[in-house]
């Protein structure tokens, strides 16, 4: 009775699902090369003093990792659709072990996505001091915690045919409000809203590599708040989710 074995098989399954794996990692890379590839010689993007390959690498790092985290929901929805969730419920697998397996798998995908973007960045001439890369990666890992809970929540609330549009639309919306594609203005309505959106702080986390400031106290509070709310909602969704789908 070793719950880590279950996590290991979950990781193995994810790596073996070639379509899921390649599409999850591929799209941020394609976007990156499309956007940054044509501007690889722009060394001062919009007079920010940043090169285009660096700026977009960092932007897509937040987008790619967020999408990777939430895609765990699609896998959960698919498992539920074939009744596997009910099969697991009649085993001694604890909710804790179940969530751990799902979250670890989601993080694996997110970190692989991040790694792929780093490598892509270097092919376009990006180079950063090691400590800055580490700081950025560390803060991104923290910023992804609420998204891990959101992925599990969506997976247990939605069906396979509704989770596609939910994730597509949700990731786009979160990326937009979070400032992935263009900087959020320093004041105004969008700025005020963004302060309470987890993707905004995820983008800010990745902007550490651009010389941005680490999170202020408000960021920690907002992210902790989302983590608590979404975790409770995810746990409730899991508990209630024992019926036939």
């Amino acid at each position, binding site marked *: 009775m070793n719950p880590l*074995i279950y996590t290991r*098989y979950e990781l193995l*399954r994810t790596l073996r699902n070639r379509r899921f794996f390649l599409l999850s990692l591929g799209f941020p890379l394609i976007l990156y090369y499309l956007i940054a590839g044509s501007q690889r010689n722009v060394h001062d993007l919009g007079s920010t003093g940043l090169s285009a390959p660096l700026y977009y690498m960092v932007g897509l790092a937040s987008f790619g990792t967020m999408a990777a985290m939430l895609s765990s929901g699609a896998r959960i929805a698919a498992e539920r659709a074939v*009744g596997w969730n*009910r099969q697991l419920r*009649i*085993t*001694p697998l604890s909710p804790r072990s179940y969530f751990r397996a799902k979250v670890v798998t989601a993080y694996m995908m997110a970190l692989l996505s991040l790694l792929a973007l780093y490598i892509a960045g270097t092919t376009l001439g990006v180079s950063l001091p090691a400590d800055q890369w580490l700081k950025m990666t560390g803060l991104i890992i923290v910023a992804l915690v609420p998204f891990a809970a959101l992925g599990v929540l969506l997976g247990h609330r939605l069906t396979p045919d509704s989770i596609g549009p939910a994730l597509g639309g949700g990731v786009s919306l979160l990326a937009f409000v979070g400032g992935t594609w263009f900087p959020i203005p320093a004041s105004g309505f969008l700025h005020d809203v963004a302060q309470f959106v987890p993707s905004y702080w995820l983008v800010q986390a990745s902007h550490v590599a651009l010389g941005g400031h680490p999170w202020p106290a408000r960021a920690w509070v907002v992210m902790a708040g989302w983590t608590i709310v979404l975790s409770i909602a995810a746990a409730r969704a899991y508990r209630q989710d024992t019926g036939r789908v």
Partner: protein
Amino acid sequence: MSASGIAAGAPVRTAEIQLSGLVKSFRGPDGPIEAVRGIDVDISAGETVALLGPNGAGKSTTIDMLLGLLAPDGGAVSVFGGSPREAVARGAVGAMLQTGDLIRDLSVRELIAMMASLYPAPLDVDEVLELTGVDGIAAQRTQKLSGGQTQRVRFAVALVSNPELLVLDEPTVAMDVEGRRGFWTTMRAFAARGKTIVFATHYLEEADAYADRAVLMAHGRIVADGPTTEIRAMVGTRTIRATLPDVDVDSLAALAGVNGAERHGEAVILTCTDSDVAIRALLAAAPDARDIEIVAAGLEQAFLALTADEAVEPTADGPGASSR
């Protein structure tokens, strides 16, 4: 015709699994659908019990409540002295649900090993692969299996947990004849280890051949509960068929040893409580009866007779009411 006589004759053993007064309804388009309307069943350790009934009888709903997947609206479930969840959490329950497919991207052996890792005292993975006849496809990916193979792997998933209580909801539906035979051979071997087995089926011959006891369900109620042999004895054990064009069936139904008569064109079919008495009475009353056949009724006839009673009079104190 009450089922209580059967229950009274049952040997007194401790009930390890108790379903008492279970009630469950679901929301439907025309108001609530009462799937289970008050069920009482006590199951002793080591018993093999068939939950028998047509589609929509409430079998799967009952099994979901037994496994703790569904909370009853009323009544209680006790499994080995605790709640179903407690029994599941300590690995005492294994189950094969009615619907469900396998997760993809694992080999059959990996899937069984993964499930085994969740239990405190699982069976040996190789032993289970062999027992369930999937050792030949152990290296295949789960998404490449046929329907019958999937069903056998699902059985292996249930079996590897080495449970004290094994619950199977319509286990042989997707299996061919050979698969079914192999499945029941394995089940018998498992039951011989002193395990408690509850299985739902609408194959009457399976209940007849493999269960110690059958619980017949219809319309969310238990219409009979007892050894399969006794259930058959509850209604006519034999039927007499004869060509007899000009006789009133009601007069035939009143004959000694007969408890029902039907006309099919020129033929009449008499359901008998005692066919020896009935055939003598029939020949005395209607000496011109021809083409006479006496046929032993299976559980099927018993089943139809009992569930038909229930359909006509679906009240709590009707003839098919719960046995306890």
